[in-house]
């Protein structure tokens, strides 16, 4: 915090949105991440949005290869990485070309001027140099910095080869932006030491580049650009900056500890879910087994096998993988075994937009299996809430012996926010009881074990292999309720279909809470990752004098018990969704209310601004007609 005091001309702003854009090889994700952590440690509230291409590394300098990282930092509670950036770093012409339109009018543009030479310009589709000609940059405050050469210069006495030195240019950018926002230097230096441990040359080059960027800010008389975003008045406690996939992974480990069952993950890599596999693979010390299967069918099969053996069986994937897992989910429904199926949704259909976000798998989660095969659905709402959503999904699966679908999406998965770490001792244990004794008397008077005897929640008895005496067989053919024996009896089938529906309905789900203006005519119903944008947008709509109510669903099946009452009689129900209206469809069918979707299916999350505008338009139109 020392940096802060020395400056005098430092202006304080309440929040700022910064976007780092460059080539896939330029390390923009790392730069953004690092800046985020420094801001987090500084005490800002923040939210991030990594936005990168599907190719591993598209041709250097091409438009397809642009990789960006956007972060909003603020001195107050925020929910999104912000709509349009106010500051943009463009490391090459392609980044400028592809992202400049996002920058707000009057925004600050920092470009690496060294890269604006013919080859790169051509690759980006410029037949002139926008830094010198044309009107592209009109209306922006452009700061052209020869980052590459300054970085090389800074490294020249370190014995680093110029080509290697050049690689540190992202640290130059980071140093410059860190100076602009008065971010402390030491945490970044410590982090460099740790991250590149053993690679002395890289360490010294990165530090030199960072310092050069910092110094550039000071010396190049950019003083008027320097601002400070004060720490946000967050609740006191210990914070960490976390993205959704990490929070979700930790939630799974927590559920394993809370239920005292070993965690088994059966998975097959797929963007944007793979990081959960990577994260869990690191945590064997928690008794976690991760199994990378030959495909998604084997992955869910293995998870089901592990569940059957008394482990907490989990499988993670994205849309295409869910399609492949659906037959086995049907089996799990028939077997009434616990299983957590995690879908990190991405743009579809088919391969679609693998690195972009979307939330169009809700109806597949509800209805994507043959026969009557209901299962509970839980959806995460912010990156850090993925932790609790994971625990909730596991709780339902284990205590109700059912497969559960947990929905997250690419935006939550990779986006991050500060998280006030919960007190782990305060987390509620998950009680799982396996049968160890006979539970039924046969006609001949002998004691016996019946796997489909149920409790009042219609949860069946479950004895795991290894339990003496309780040997029994289960299978996917229709079975007699109680005994579990194969049954083709029509009445039994009818009853089993009813039971499978009813046992999902009997799951306890917290009531929804109506926030904002509960009695407002207009009700916004959200689910999943739209929570942040909706909340921000509604804040603005309400501060412009309109009344709106808001409910957010974390449980999509069964619906909260009070939802019907909340919706009843409302003529103006709007449902912002990253699909063409899937929750709306469910609400309409269930409650016969005229829920109207606000759809966005563009591979990008809603911005608060566009939601604000849509809702304002609606509210105003409604009152004029």
């Amino acid at each position, binding site marked *: 915090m020392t940096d802060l005091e020395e400056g005098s001309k430092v202006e304080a702003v309440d929040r700022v949105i910064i976007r780092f854009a460059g080539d896939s090889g330029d390390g923009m994700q790392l730069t953004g991440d690092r800046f985020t952590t420094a801001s*987090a440690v500084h*005490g800002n509230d923040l939210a991030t949005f990594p936005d990168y291409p599907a190719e591993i590394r598209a041709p250097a300098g091409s438009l397809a290869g642009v990789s960006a990282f956007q972060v909003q930092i603020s001195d107050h509670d925020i929910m999104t990485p912000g709509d349009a950036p106010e500051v943009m770093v463009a490391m090459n012409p392609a980044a400028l070309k592809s992202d400049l339109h996002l920058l707000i009018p009057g925004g600050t543009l920092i470009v690496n001027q060294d890269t604006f030479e013919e080859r790169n310009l051509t690759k980006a589709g410029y037949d002139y140099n926008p830094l010198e000609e044309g009107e592209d940059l009109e209306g922006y405050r452009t700061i052209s910095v020869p980052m590459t050469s300054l970085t090389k210069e800074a490294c020249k006495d370190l014995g680093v080869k110029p080509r290697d030195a050049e690689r540190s240019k992202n640290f130059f950018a980071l140093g410059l932006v860190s100076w602009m926002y008065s971010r402390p230097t030491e*945490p970044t230096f410590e982090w460099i030491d740790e991250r590149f441990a053993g690679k002395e040359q890289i360490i010294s080059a990165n530090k030199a580049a960072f310092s050069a960027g910092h110094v550039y800010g000071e010396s190049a008389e950019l003083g008027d650009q320097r601002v400070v975003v004060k*720490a946000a008045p*967050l*609740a*006191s*406690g*210990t*914070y*960490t900056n*976390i993205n959704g996939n990490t929070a979700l992974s*930790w939630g799974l*480990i927590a559920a394993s500890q809370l239920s005292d069952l*070993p965690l*088994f993950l*059966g998975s097959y890599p797929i963007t944007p879910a793979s990081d959960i596999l990577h994260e869990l693979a690191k*945590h*064997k*010390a*928690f*008794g*976690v*087994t991760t*199994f990378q*299967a*030959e495909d998604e*069918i*084997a992955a869910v*099969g*293995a*998870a*089901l*096998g*592990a*569940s*059957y*053996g*008394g*482990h907490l*069986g989990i499988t993670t994937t994205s849309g295409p993988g869910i399609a492949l897992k659906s*037959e086995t989910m*049907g*089996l799990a429904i028939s077997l009434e075994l616990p299983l957590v199926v995690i879908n990190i949704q991405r743009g579809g259909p088919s391969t679609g937009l693998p690195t972009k976000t979307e939330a169009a798998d809700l109806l597949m989660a509800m209805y994507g299996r043959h026969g009557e095969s209901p299962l509970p659905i839980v959806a995460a709402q912010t990156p850090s809430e993925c932790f609790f959503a994971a625990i909730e999904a596991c709780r339902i699966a284990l205590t109700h012996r059912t497969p559960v679908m947990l929905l997250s999406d690419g935006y939550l998965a990779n986006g991050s926010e500060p998280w*006030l*770490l919960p007190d*782990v001792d305060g987390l509620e244990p998950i009680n799982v009881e396996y049968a160890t004794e006979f539970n039924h008397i046969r006609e001949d008077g002998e004691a016996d074990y019946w796997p489909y005897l149920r409790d009042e929640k219609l949860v069946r008895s479950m004895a795991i*292999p*290894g*339990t*003496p005496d*309780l*040997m*029994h*067989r*289960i*299978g*996917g053919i229709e079975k007699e309720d109680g005994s579990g*024996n*194969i049954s083709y009896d029509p009445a039994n089938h009818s009853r089993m279909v009813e039971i499978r529906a009813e046992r999902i309905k009997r799951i306890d789900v917290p009531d929804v809470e109506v926030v904002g203006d509960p009695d407002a005519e207009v009700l916004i119903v959200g689910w999943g990752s739209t929570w942040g944008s909706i909340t921000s947008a509604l804040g603005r709509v309400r501060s412009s004098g309109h009344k709106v109510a808001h409910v957010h669903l974390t449980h999509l099946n069964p619906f909260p018990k009070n939802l019907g009452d909340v919706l009843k009689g409302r003529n103006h129900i709007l449902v912002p969704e990253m699909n063409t209206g899937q929750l709306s469809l469910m609400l309409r069918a269930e409650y016969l209310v005229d829920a109207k979707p606000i759809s966005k299916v563009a591979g990008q999350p809603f911005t608060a601004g566009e939601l604000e505008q849509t809702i304002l338009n609606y509210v105003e139109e409604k009152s004029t007609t």
Partner: protein
Amino acid sequence: MTDVMDSEAVPETSRADWQSDQEVRWCPGCGDYSILTALQLLLPDLGVRREKTVFISGIGCAARFPYYMNTYGMHSIHGRAPAIATGLALARPDLDIWVVGGDGDMLSIGGNHLIHALRRNTNMNILLFNNQIYGLTKGQFSPTSETGKVTKSSPVGLISEPFNPISVALGAEASFVARSHDMDRKHLQEIFTRAHAHPGASFVEVYQNCNVFNDGAFAEITKKDARDDMLINLIHGEPIQFGSERQFGIVQTANGVEIANVSEVGIESLLVHDETRSDPSTAFALSRLAKGPDEPTPVGVFRAAVREEYASAMSDQVMGVTEERGKGELKDLLHSLPTWEV
């Protein structure tokens, strides 16, 4: 999973203890009956507990097997038994897992799970009941059906060549590979005993007669009076010989292996069977001897080589890391990224 009972002696059981109360629902005369009987008679001698034994199957006639065993069992979905068994085996190395399925279940829809299970070498005994037909769906060809076969789905004769299940298994790095048939209870029991004893994935192909849709497919080699001449019994450490007078033997050639008259080539030039070779090439060559069950066909253990077992290696890794780093603490995990106080 430590279990008090593990230290106690395994209780004595009889065949009846291994029979479930479910009525067996195969067609009268189906070869599946004899395999079931062979196993139910054998299990009391294997020194295993019923509650530690699990049968996992897919879908098909063969896959009804678990219902008839008084053990834990799961009749899952078509083709997926090896995948489900893999998860169970990884979670529960204390269990004895058997996977049972037909040629369609395991080699058609389930082919990929089978070869990966064999490659990984996870502890389970995989029994493939090969009747060269789809029984349960009433008589379509399977991937082991012979070229030219007329079935409901190949009314003018099947075009494609069949898989040789032993070759497929060996190509997939299987560490234990054997073949038996439903007409010889003793041989079945020997092979099952060996499969059970093998650490890792054991693959057993059982020729099984489907008397409704493919009757007599193996009769030429399995009927009592043909066996001497048509079954080549592979015996570890012995020269490979067969025939009522043991007049035929197997010799190696540049093409693989071949049948020769012992009197012509001399017993010393016969190939000596060695199940334990780390190189599966010779076992593979033996698998190619017969093109189908109408030529002299090797039965017995083709390969029984030592390879690391996957489930125990996996749990060793988990335990190793735990020992090295100490048992994970949730609180520490939550604090493992940079944190700050407000």
